[in-house]
């Protein structure tokens, strides 16, 4: 058994590097979702279950516009604009009334929003998945140093995600809006007392979070299925990320997302392999896959035991 693993040593190194890239790419897309979620929770104290719907709206806007114009880039712009607009609208009409309510009311209201968005999208676009494809200039694999074949689009996702992360960091640490957001996280009453229009700030933050989610939906939609309900599985992962990273912390969201991405990807590959040392292949695959689905939740539980507020959380 060990001999067999050793015999695959060289292949395994390439496979390992490829899987680490996959984990990073998955993590970075999760980060785009989680950043908005954690920002909204940190600044406004709002649990927004409808964040997954904004992800879906981004993907549908991109698919519709890319389908009409044939340009993926225009699709991405439409995703950003569409999701931000939907976010701002939802904040003005619904979310605004929820800030003073407790979390249970927020969960109930935003859950209702999921249903409204899902059925509304079905009403407009129908029940069958839409087509959105990777643009020609980003499609196909490229060869990395060491002979690793890796899809160009996934590399582009890593680069774009890191660029957005950097932009977010600069926005929050270097701009006036960033100062207001950080102040809003620390002491809401005080910044209101200083004469900052808190209602406007909340709308902007919510729209920003929505735009990030919509952007992620469009980027991921090109290699996945653009369909009603696509946002909810990602939403659950994004919640795991912000719990691990610490609620309200963008840095925590980034580290948490990368941890979750790598754990999920590498766990899915190596747990079944490890199980093969103990069981026959079929049983090992089955047990290993089941354990792999649990891996990120085990990670979350472990982090909560060691640091109850999450890795970078300010509040317990």
């Amino acid at each position, binding site marked *: 058994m060990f001999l067999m693993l050793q015999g695959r040593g060289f292949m395994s190194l390439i496979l390992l590097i*490829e899987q680490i890239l996959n984990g990073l790419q998955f993590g970075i897309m999760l980060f785009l979702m989680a950043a908005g979620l954690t920002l909204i929770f940190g600044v406004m104290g709002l649990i927004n279950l409808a964040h997954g719907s904004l992800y879906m709206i981004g993907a549908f806007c991109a698919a519709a516009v890319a389908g009409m114009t044939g340009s993926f880039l225009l699709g991405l712009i439409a995703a950003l604009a569409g999701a931000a607009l939907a976010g701002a609208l939802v904040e003005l009409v619904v979310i605004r009334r929820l800030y003073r309510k407790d979390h249970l009311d927020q969960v109930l209201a935003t859950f209702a929003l999921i249903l409204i968005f899902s059925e509304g999208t079905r009403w407009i676009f129908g029940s069958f998945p839409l087509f959105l*494809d990777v643009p020609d200039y980003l499609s196909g694999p490229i060869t990395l140093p060491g002979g690793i074949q890796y899809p160009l689009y996934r590399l582009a996702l890593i680069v774009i995600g890191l660029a957005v992360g950097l932009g977010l960091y600069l926005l929050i640490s270097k701009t006036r809006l960033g100062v207001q957001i950080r102040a809003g996280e620390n002491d809401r009453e005080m910044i209101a007392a200083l004469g900052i229009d808190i209602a406007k700030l909340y709308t902007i933050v919510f729209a920003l979070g929505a735009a990030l989610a919509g952007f992620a939906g469009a980027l991921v939609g090109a290699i996945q299925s*653009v369909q009603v309900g696509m946002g909810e599985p990602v939403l659950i992962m994004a919640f795991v990320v912000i719990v691990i990273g610490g609620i309200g912390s963008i840095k925590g969201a980034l580290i948490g997302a990368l941890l979750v991405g790598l754990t999920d990807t590498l766990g899915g590959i190596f747990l079944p392999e490890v199980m093969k040392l103990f069981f026959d292949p079929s049983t090992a695959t089955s047990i290993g896959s089941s354990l792999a689905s649990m891996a990120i939740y085990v990670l979350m539980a472990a982090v909560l035991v060691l640091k109850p507020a999450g890795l970078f959380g300010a509040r317990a």
Partner: protein
Amino acid sequence: MKVMTMAATAVLALGLTSAQAEPVKVGMITTLSGGGAGLGIDVRDGFLLAVKQSGNSDIEVIVEDDQRKPDVAVQLADKMVQSDKVDVMTGIIWSNLAMAVIPSVTAQGKFYLSPNAGPSALAGKGCHPNYFNVAWQNDNLHEGAGAYANFADMKKSFILAPNYPAGKDALTGYKRFYKGDLAGEIYTKLGQTDYAAELAQIRASGADSVFFFLPGGMGISFLKQYKDSGIDLPVVGPAFSFDQGILQAVGDAALGVKNTSQWSKDIANETNKAFVESFQAEYGRLPSLYASQGFDTANLLLSAMAKADVSDADAFRAALEEADFRSTRGNFKFGPNHHPIQDIHVREVIKEGDVYTNKIIGTALTSHADAYWAECDM
């Protein structure tokens, strides 16, 4: 042609009404919202089309949405049996929902005609005289894929399916017929949309072919990412990842892929031709295999109604067993466990004008029965 069909339906309707004493109430629970809604909508539309074409006014269909949730399906079934007093139930798409609903419905003396889900548990030891499956036993299409893989000289397949009962039935079904070696076997997460890790494993495994069962959105994601990964191995799978509803979303990535199905829109018989034409005229889209299953289910029911009264359960059951209706699939009959004995075809994904669709290129298994009938004792 049109006049002929109308005349035929009129005659059929006359025949039906004369034999019919009391109306039959059908309860259809299917998935009409959420991720898997496309499948349920197709089954419903196919079923209602057949009812409409029959012109039979003695059939009343109540349609409810299970939202793909077992608990909702169970509640709806209780309501339909107890307060709506339905005679026959149908509609469920997913095997886990079928397992939650069907045994209790048949135990209460109602008939259940499955237009889709065919879990192995209900085909073998758990079979029931009042349970009929009009689609297939879950393993069937995968068995066809295994048989095709032998024919296409595939010797080292990499196989994957989601980690849930129908996924396990799928890999079992493929392996039952496939004679080559396995380059790898993976269970993915149910609902997984990113297959980068699995694709890397496929690339590293030295496989000569890939078999996958990933229904709905999972299959769309897999195929798009497969194409983008640059892996150039032949792919074979069951029809679920290549049905009419999702092919347009997959696009070029699916072209040329071989898939196995009991139905295809180009099966050459009059019933099927009329079905495809009338479905397109009624709903403005091409039918999927799910739509054909809904259509066949309704026609089976109508054929039994013409022969027996639903209140006489034994006579009605015997009428259903005869399967005396014209199936869109051509050859169709029931085995001893009330599951279909039918041909499994191999189809290839092609492009007709702007529309992606399937074309039959051969038959994988002829008059194929499922592997569990011997365990059924009724």
